[in-house]
């Protein structure tokens, strides 16, 4: 078990290092940083001075090691647009994105697990068809479109919820539902397939033969095994949700990391983009690692594979 964890951690670390290298290289390939830092009215001499002052005239490998060393300590440099250190800007907005991502995950699980179970219990029934319809729509509708529909219905027509902005819980409802809608089909299909497979297995037949109550069989014996794949996928989906928040946050003007990323890309604020890419990638890597570990704990067979 310990060896498995060490192996997985090393792989995660390697992925994080690769992401940091790629994001650093992308930053340097996308334009002259010295020119951006010096500002639009800088002369060639000013730009050369900035290049020297910021160490941009050094070999790129040295620059990377310097940047990575600082990044480990939380120093991602200054935003070119806001002229402030990057990390506090991101740290201020991270809770918004986390709140959005976690809310979306909770909503997605809350909707998809009962629906998946119901669909598995009554294959080809109306509830199964309803689940299938939700699943198809969830995958077919672009998330920004679904968000706009919600906005028009709940924000404009019914006026139950604020259309955009950042504030209390009510500002998260529509964005979280929109974001969750992307994950629901995956969770629902996994739950349905898992439940159907488990319900057909011998130990469930044995449990039923012993005369256990059907609810006990369903929730105590079947569900635990059926949702194991969900753990890994849920972690991955949370990672996707954090990245996917770029579109949702900009549609709803929710001032999270996604919105900041969108703004920073559009105004070529490279240090912020680079830090966001790295931070979100690290979240994704850590979540995947945690999911692997949790799965290994839940299902001992995984550890020996």
């Amino acid at each position: 078990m310990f060896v498995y964890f060490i192996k997985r951690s090393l792989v995660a670390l390697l992925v994080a290092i690769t992401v940091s290298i790629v994001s650093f290289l992308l930053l340097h390939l996308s334009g002259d940083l010295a020119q951006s830092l010096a500002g639009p009215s800088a002369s060639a001499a000013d730009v050369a001075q900035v290049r020297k002052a910021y160490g941009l005239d050094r070999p790129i490998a040295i620059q990377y090691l310097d940047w990575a060393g600082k990044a480990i300590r939380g120093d991602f440099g200054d935003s070119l647009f806001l002229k402030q250190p990057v990390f506090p800007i991101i740290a201020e907005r991270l809770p918004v994105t986390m709140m959005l991502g976690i809310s979306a995950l909770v909503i997605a699980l809350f909707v998809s697990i009962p629906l998946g179970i119901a669909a598995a219990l009554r294959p080809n029934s109306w509830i199964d068809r309803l689940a299938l319809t939700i699943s198809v729509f969830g995958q077919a509708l672009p998330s920004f479109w679904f968000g706009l529909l919600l906005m028009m219905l709940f924000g404009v027509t019914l006026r139950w919820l604020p259309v955009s902005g950042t504030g209390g819980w009510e500002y998260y409802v529509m964005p979280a539902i929109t974001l969750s809608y992307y994950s629901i089909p995956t969770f629902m299909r996994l739950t349905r397939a898992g439940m159907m497979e488990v319900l057909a297995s011998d130990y469930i037949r044995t449990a039923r033969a012993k005369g256990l109550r059907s609810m006990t069989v369903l929730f105590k014996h079947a569900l635990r095994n059926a949702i194991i794949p969900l753990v890994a996928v849920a972690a991955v989906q949370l990672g996707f949700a954090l990245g996917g928040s770029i579109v949702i946050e900009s549609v709803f003007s929710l001032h999270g990391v996604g919105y900041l990323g969108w703004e920073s890309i559009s105004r070529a604020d490279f240090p912020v983009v680079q830090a966001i890419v790295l931070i979100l990638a690290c979240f994704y890597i850590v979540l995947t690692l945690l999911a692997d570990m949790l799965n290994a704990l839940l299902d001992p067979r995984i550890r020996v594979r």
Partner: protein
Amino acid sequence: MFRTTAAITCMAALGVGLWTAPGFANKANDTLRVAWDQQIDNADAYFNTNREGIILARMVWDQLIDRDPETFQYKPALATAWRWVDDLTLEFDLRQGVKFQDGQPFDAEDVVYTLNFVSNPANKVLNTTNVGWIKNAEKIDQYKVRIHLKAPFPAALEYLAGPIPIYPHVYYAKVGPDGMGRHPVGSGPYKVESLEPGKSITLVKNTDYWNDSPKGKPKIGKIVVTFPPEKTTQLAELLSGGLDWIWYVPTDQVKNLEKVKGLTVTSGETMRVGYIYFDAAGRSGKSPLQDVRVRQAIAHAINRPEFTKTFFASTANVLKGPCFPTQFGCYQGAKQYDYNLAKAKELMKEAGYPDGFSTTLYAFRQPPSWEDALAGYMRQIGIQASIQLLQYPAFRNKNHEGVTPISFGDWGSYSINDASAILGNFFTGSADDFSGDKELQGWVQDADTNSDPKKREELYKKAIDRIMDRMYWLPMNSYAVYYAHTNELNFTPYKDEIPRYYLYSWK
């Protein structure tokens, strides 16, 4: 990319009939909520270059002179009188009894400190055109100053009546541009209550605003500015009553909005002009665009009347020159390029590009459908243009880095009613100059600095003739902005594209 499509389809799908009138427009709590499209890099008016920065500056600070938004006449503001001492010296009598929002009294020190600071190249203000003509300012006595010019600059009063706000010198010396950007302090009709970069700006009425200001006492208690990035979101906010005022409403949404009870849609032509800028100098590398025939071919391939009619209100006009017609020196008789595909193809063939070529079209602010249309026109003569739609600061940086072969942009001249505000920016060898034409640069520089109006007109005519003849810049059309707002607001649009919130009131 999805903004306009989403807006159209969303509104079409739901139908106007579903919408109800805005129910909680904020007249009740005296708060006007407005949406701006562009965020401001730094609220210090000398360290941002976008329109929203100009609007904010008018509210927070005052100028020496005020220009009447309707008549373009100059009116006394922080200066009560002014005179040209000679071609290189302007003298101002200053107003007494004005106080800044931090309680400091206004006098000559403030004018001198501000103008000397912003005109010093070491301080690197962004709008060098606005202040580059100032040599220095000199205090004559506590309420009299002189401004010395580097060279004759006839448009000086236009600039002093526009993008040159006066700062409190004690505060500015202490906090600098960074501090002023975070916590602006001025003498204007509104005070900045809070400023969260990228999120919102809250302004409150300056209850101690000085008497006799041509701007008048502000009427609305509080103004909250937000920056929803999507036009669709802005529209939805307006419909739900979450916003009271938006602008740059897409033309295709106007008819729908006009049907909504409780909202008013207003339009008006503005001084802003659209343009296509060709890299004739080859700053972005060697390309077919350095051939005048290719540039002329593109000018002939773009159907400007159709483009204007499709995307703008009827008050917008196709332009005959690279400036706004009311601006001094904006000559209207230069060579014109009608929509003529056959001629365009012939020119491409002559230039050796019968099958066209590939390039990149850079743009900002405009809805993607506009760039799609322009790319479509160019495709007709074989030019495949991939579109790079950026936010303004990124667009400006790309231009200044010289990597843009073709740019589609717009320019509001900082609302200066003089051709120097546009030609002086794009054709004097600055980072925005892609003509590489030294002779042209000389003419424009001379015109910008000559004190003889007749001579200026002649020089601008020569310059405009050259620009149009060599097709360095294709003037597209004047802009006509659509504004949509709650009909509880008394609102008037102005040609200089500055919404003066301090003049507006609740009905």
